[in-house]
């Protein structure tokens, strides 16, 4: 024991840091901030350190070459001892990191932590969130598979829509005219050097500010933040009734971080690594690319926005969102901190959470993607074929062979891009069906040139049979008059 003390003091005689470290660790914090609500920031740093560590381990094997990356991932998954586990830790760590950073942000927003004097801490936090999202996207690119390849194409297509500089931006992003070797190497540099460097620097300043300004006090309804008096009030909170950060508050951070690491490891063991899926070979076009979990909401939004408003919303929306987040501490730097007295803040969080959640849910089973193989893999359910005339059966065949099922479901099987047609005959009359098939419209292609008159007749006579037995099919009012009064 004496030897350790001796060695320790030998080093500290030269380094002179022990006093600073002890003061920092034992700095007083307000008593009620030793709370389970205050553990997310430290958990985010813990997961970030896990990402650095597992990332270095992966970089020891991974080859950032368009021709070899996919193979090196296969070797990591199948040949290197526990390579799959390190990949799984890194992949799940990424999802946990985005989730924890988002929860941390919601918590500090609802607790009013962005108000005076912690404006800069919040602004750095916004940049840390953006950097985390860049890490998540570039990480998906390094998992160089079909989703990564076509995901890059989607990124380039969005980027190209920026007026004037868009097409240049595409070349800069791809490192050339197409998605190829130089694209992967620059995303490797981004993911492994540039953004982690930014993250480390910003986290350092973010933490320095937390220590210099003190952790945000627990918001009490009615305790108003005022620039003139806040510092004095906070000083009293910490120095009169405060507790030392170590060990009084830090134990909850340590326990929660350990729990999060355990959760990441459990996901890695039981759910395994992410992909890679198909080879990044653009000539294999049988693929349905979709993004990773935290970008699914964007995938949904790109489908639901009307075509003409897509580009402006896509380009202006994120810029406005980021500006609002950055400007928040400047137009709401004082006042109530407690979420109990800030209904608009609570509603905003709920609205954003419900919107993103709904879009993500919609994107898990995307209704807008046609089911490309429905025409050959999903037969027409038999109940729709009973007691049909030969012409109507021929129509059912046309319905199947012309890929109508790619977008239209029968009995919940088939695409959901167009309406389900189980009851179409009670919505559209015979003539309206003919018009819809031939002219299209309402987001349906026109089939006029692609169907012979005989095929159209057969198809529409089949569609005419699609109504439940207890309902009456739609009829043209004038036709009804003719059928009631034949003369």
């Amino acid at each position, binding site marked *: 024991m004496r030897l350790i003390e001796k060695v320790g003091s030998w080093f500290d005689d030269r380094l002179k840091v022990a006093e600073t470290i002890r003061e920092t660790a034992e700095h007083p914090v307000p008593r009620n901030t030793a709370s389970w609500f205050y553990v997310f920031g430290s958990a985010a740093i813990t997961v970030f350190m896990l990402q650095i560590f597992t990332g270095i381990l992966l970089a020891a094997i991974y080859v950032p*070459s*368009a*021709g*070899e990356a996919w193979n090196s991932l296969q070797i990591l998954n199948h040949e290197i001892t526990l390579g799959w586990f390190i990949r799984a830790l890194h992949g799940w760590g990424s999802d946990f990191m985005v989730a924890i950073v988002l929860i941390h942000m919601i918590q500090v927003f609802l607790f009013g932590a962005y108000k005076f004097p912690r404006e800069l801490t919040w602004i750095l936090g916004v940049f840390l969130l953006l950097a985390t999202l860049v890490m998540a996207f570039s990480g998906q690119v390094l998992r160089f598979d079909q989703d990564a390849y*076509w995901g890059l*194409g*989607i990124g*380039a*297509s*969005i*980027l*190209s*829509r*920026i007026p004037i500089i*868009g*097409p*240049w931006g*595409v*070349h*800069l992003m*791809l*490192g*050339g*005219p*197409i998605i*190829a*070797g*130089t694209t992967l190497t620059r995303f490797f540099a981004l993911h492994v050097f540039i953004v982690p460097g930014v993250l480390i620097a910003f986290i350092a300043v973010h933490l320095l500010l937390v220590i210099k300004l003190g952790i945000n006090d627990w918001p009490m309804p009615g305790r108003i933040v005022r620039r003139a008096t806040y510092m004095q009030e906070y000083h009293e909170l910490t120095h009169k009734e405060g507790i030392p950060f170590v060990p009084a508050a830090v134990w909850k951070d340590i326990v929660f971080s350990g729990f999060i690491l355990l959760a990441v490891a459990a996901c890695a063991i039981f759910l395994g690594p992410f992909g890679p899926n198909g080879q*990044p*070979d*653009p*000539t294999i*076009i*049988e*693929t*349905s*690319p*979709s993004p990773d979990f935290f970008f699914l909401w964007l995938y949904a939004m*790109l*489908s639901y*926005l009307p*075509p003409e408003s*897509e*580009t402006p919303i896509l380009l202006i929306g994120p810029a406005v969102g980021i500006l609002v987040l950055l400007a928040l501490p400047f137009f709401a730097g004082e006042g109530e901190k407690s979420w109990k007295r800030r209904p608009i803040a609570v509603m905003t969080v709920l609205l954003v959470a419900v919107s993103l959640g709904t879009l993500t849910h919609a994107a898990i089973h995307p209704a*807008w*993607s*046609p089911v*490309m193989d429905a025409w050959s893999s999903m037969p027409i359910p038999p109940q729709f074929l009973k007691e049909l005339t030969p012409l109507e059966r021929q129509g059912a065949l046309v319905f199947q*062979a*012309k*890929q109508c099922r790619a*977008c239209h479901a029968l009995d919940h099987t088939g695409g959901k*891009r167009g309406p389900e047609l189980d009851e179409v005959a009670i919505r559209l009359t015979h003539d309206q069906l003919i018009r819809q098939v031939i002219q*299209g419209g309402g*987001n349906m*292609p*026109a*089939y006029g*040139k*692609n169907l012979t008159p005989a095929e159209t007749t057969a198809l529409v006579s089949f569609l005419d049979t699609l109504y439940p037995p207890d309902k009456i099919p739609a009829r043209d009012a004038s036709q009804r008059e003719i059928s009631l009064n034949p003369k």
Partner: protein
Amino acid sequence: MTTENDISRREVLMKIGLFFNGLVGFALAIPIVRYIMSPVAKARKDREQSWLSLGDVGQFPAGETRLATYRNPVVNAWDGETADVPCWVRRIDTQTFQVFAINCAHLGCPVHWFPQSNLFLCPCHGGAYYQDGSRASGPPERGLFEIHYKIDNGNLLIKAGEMPTPGRAAIPAGGKSTCA
């Protein structure tokens, strides 16, 4: 008097040193920026589009649309299979073709051709195009990207080498006159 002179002399020397470093930094920044911007500079010189053969015209039957593949003209040794780019070739009659980029005009996903319904469908967000590449329905704001072609000694040649994107296509790059 002498101390004041000393301080001001040191300050001047420090400022000269800073200015010198700024000068060197600026000089170094020029090649660094040129290095970073080299993909853009190359693209502006329009060196990336060249005539490529898709093979004998005989392999494309009239009235049909078939998938063809070419090796991108600008290739690095480590590109692997990513430099093999597909495209759709529609032969209308003996001399008339249409060549479409594989990328959907919405967000660049690969479109599939369905000969039964004469439609191109995109698996991502459901963009649909007619057989002549014009927009049929869905989120794309325009038809498929068409690639210039010519027939030379019974070979189908296309002018390609760059991934088409919605923004890029808005710039008139060469026009349509190159068709032979």
